[in-house]
């Protein structure tokens, strides 16, 4: 346990000692700020009809949200194992009393903590809305739950990619290549006539997940998805690290 904690804190420190955390944070805030401004401007227009859950639009109902997510999660995870392999620090790490699984979990938790931290400033948007009108906090909490769930899923995919290669660039590209289908398969739902297949794709439709959560609908099936998905990818990452098919 102390080995996990030691590795987790070391990773977090490394994030904040490099420009990466700040760059990603700035990018995320820039895009989110823009989205928030558009939403407020839109809902303030009498023709829009307003909304009972204004932040629903913010939680995943614009393409910006997804584009940013698809970009920042590979950047957060790409370094984690690839860099240790490239530089050789993996050798002293994996000969220390820590298992491969613990290494993967520690690094994943560090990435997840950074990711969660990046969203903290956006709480201000809810605060601003609450100042000018009433905010139903249930859907807001559910929306953030969705952000954390999808983040966990995406970051775990990134962990698998970074465990597979010693190149950060390839790790990022590989993550992106896996995330794009993971995200867009669900969107094919509307193009499918076969009932069973449509239900499967509907289950995977992340856009719809966020829509429901943003409206305050918490479906346990979604939560199971956000727990089992990361568990699967972290398990695969652990296996990839354990076989050590490198010289």
């Amino acid at each position, binding site marked *: 346990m102390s080995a996990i904690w030691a590795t987790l804190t070391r990773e977090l420190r490394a994030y904040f000692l490099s420009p990466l955390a700040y760059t990603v944070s700035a990018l995320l805030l820039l895009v989110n700020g823009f989205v928030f401004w558009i939403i407020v401007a839109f809902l303030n227009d009498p023709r829009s009809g307003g909304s009972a859950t204004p932040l629903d639009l913010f939680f995943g109902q614009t393409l910006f949200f997804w584009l940013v997510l698809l970009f920042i999660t590979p950047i957060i995870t790409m370094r984690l194992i690839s860099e240790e392999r490239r530089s050789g620090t993996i*050798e002293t790490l*994996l000969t220390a009393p820590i298992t491969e699984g613990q290494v993967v979990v520690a690094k994943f938790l560090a990435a997840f903590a950074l990711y969660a931290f990046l969203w903290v400033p956006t709480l201000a948007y809810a605060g601003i809305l609450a100042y000018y009108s009433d905010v139903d906090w249930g859907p807001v909490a559910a929306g953030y739950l969705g952000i954390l769930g999808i983040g966990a899923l995406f970051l775990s995919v990134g962990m698998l990619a970074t465990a597979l290669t010693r190149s950060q660039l390839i790790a990022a590209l590989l993550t992106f290549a896996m995330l794009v289908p993971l995200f867009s398969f669900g969107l094919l739902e509307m193009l499918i006539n076969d009932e069973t297949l449509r239900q499967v794709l509907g289950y995977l439709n992340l856009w719809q997940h966020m829509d429901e959560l943003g409206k305050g609908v918490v479906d346990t099936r979604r939560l199971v998805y956000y727990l089992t998905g990361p568990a699967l990818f972290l398990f695969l990452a652990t296996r990839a690290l354990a076989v050590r098919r490198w010289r």
Partner: protein
Amino acid sequence: MIEAQNLSRRYGDFTAVDRISFSVNDGEIVGFLGPNGAGKTTAIRMVTGFLPPTSGRVRVAGRNLFEDPVAARRELGYLPEHVALYPEMRVNEYLAYRARLEGMSASVAREAIPETLADCLLESVREQIIGTLSKGYRQRVGLATAILHRPKVLVFDEPTVGLDPKQIIAIRELIRKLGRQRTLLLSTHILPEVELLCDRVMIIDKGRIIAEGTPQSLQERWKGDAELRVELKGASPEAGEALASVPGVVRVDAEGPAFRVRCAPGADPREEIFRLAVARDWVVLELAERRTSLEDVFVRLTTRDSGKEASSPGDESAEEVQG
């Protein structure tokens, strides 16, 4: 302390390490000696648990390295061939991280870190960022990482490679000090290092252990027949023939102003040669037995296969060492 049984590692068709077995006893310093590419690093990496072997078993301090890895690794301190560190951390920060990774309690770490910094002569750079350290200091930080948690077994892969002579002396001194208290397996291709530091040597070539013993016993066993260097002043040109007629001399070759005299097994014709020189009124400038160094043993053993092309006239040793 370390027991390796039938360790093999294959990469596709290439066998880097081929069924080697060895053990390192408590308190021993054992050297792995071999040319570059002999399989030393692969063997070391399997012994430290970094590389899973294709077949075979390793026990460290009585624990199976691949069935009980965490407990076994706790007893192990490892200095890899390429010391890699996190460049953004400070030296003391890094050691504090390693202490927690090794599961040391805060109070134990508070004592161990300054002690290790002192042992490795790192006190002056403890606040420095690792990325700004010179190679020699980084090597010492690597060494500090290996000994910080006071493991029973130390494994060092080429600990002095890439250092300047002064640093080499300092590191060897430290290794010698550590070796008095702990079990140490050391790999190197530098021969004086082995002669200087090790109780026992294993010569590894093409993935196999081809010889094993104390540095002295290896020299004894592989020394071949004695060879003398004789330099005479005032000797006539036919002195070589005269020397060849001395009992116990097998062959004489001129070597610049001197002669290289090869002797029959077990023979020591130095006295006869001296008497001959006195009788002929030659002044003996040099009459010395050429000692077999570990280096000769090493070169003979590791060039056996390619020896046919490499052997020069008068160098038939390639055949003799087959036994």
